[in-house]
């Protein structure tokens, strides 16, 4: 994939790996759409970068997701790369007093369901581009779970499985979209 002159969506762009990827791509002459639920921090970081805009989105909120997809279709139809990097992680022990079903629900929504939804919503738009890519951030914990992050590990295994399936499904469909 070319690393300049792209229009790139990055979720989870206010901190961590998403922010660092945004910085590097910004230096390489790309247009960056930075999305995160931490809007104050996101605006500060986006203001430091060239060619970057900030969009507030909570990936567990259906209305927010619809708004994000509509905004991209209306205002950023030149989008050709979607880096779906946002992640939630809860540090807790299974079968202890720390267990809470809400951890599983929030992590599976942010780390898995939101990405399945976004890839399907954006695939028609990306399929019109000469060079296009989806990128999902999984983890070494997709191979084996870490007991401190049990649900996080499970969601990354699910997302890795989805990446493999998407890669082959897009290929068989004759799509030029690359799935990283």
């Amino acid at each position, binding site marked *: 994939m070319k690393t300049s002159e792209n229009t790139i969506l990055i979720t989870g762009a206010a901190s*961590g790996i998403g922010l660092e990827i945004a910085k590097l791509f910004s230096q390489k002459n790309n247009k960056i759409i930075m999305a995160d639920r931490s809007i104050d921090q996101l605006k500060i970081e986006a203001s430091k970068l060239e060619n970057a805009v900030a969009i507030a989105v909570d990936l567990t909120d259906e209305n927010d997701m619809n708004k994000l997809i509509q905004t991209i279709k209306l205002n950023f139809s030149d989008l050709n790369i979607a880096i779906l990097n946002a992640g939630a*992680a809860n540090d807790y022990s299974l079968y202890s007093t720390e267990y809470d079903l809400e951890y599983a629900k929030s992590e599976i929504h942010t780390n898995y369901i939101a990405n399945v939804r976004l890839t399907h919503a954006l695939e028609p738009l990306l399929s019109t581009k000469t060079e296009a890519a989806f990128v999902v951030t999984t983890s070494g914990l997709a191979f084996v*779970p870490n007991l401190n992050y049990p649900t996080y590990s499970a969601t990354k295994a699910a997302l890795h499985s989805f990446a493999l399936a998407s890669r082959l499904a897009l290929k068989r469909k004759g799509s030029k979209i690359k799935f990283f």
Partner: protein
Amino acid sequence: MPPLTETPLAKGLDAPKITAAEVASWFIDSFEKDELEIHVGDTKKIYQLFLRSPEEAFMAVNP
């Protein structure tokens, strides 16, 4: 597929971590070369170990 990384997500784990900037840089190099599955840093080791012995890999991340 990053390993344990210095980010707000991993603040609960006290273990050696790669920086987010290193992960980003590794990703962009691999992205440019069309390497679709990117095993960053220690993920490469975990994957190799997993191929050899899933049980050993499981114990290695849960010492």
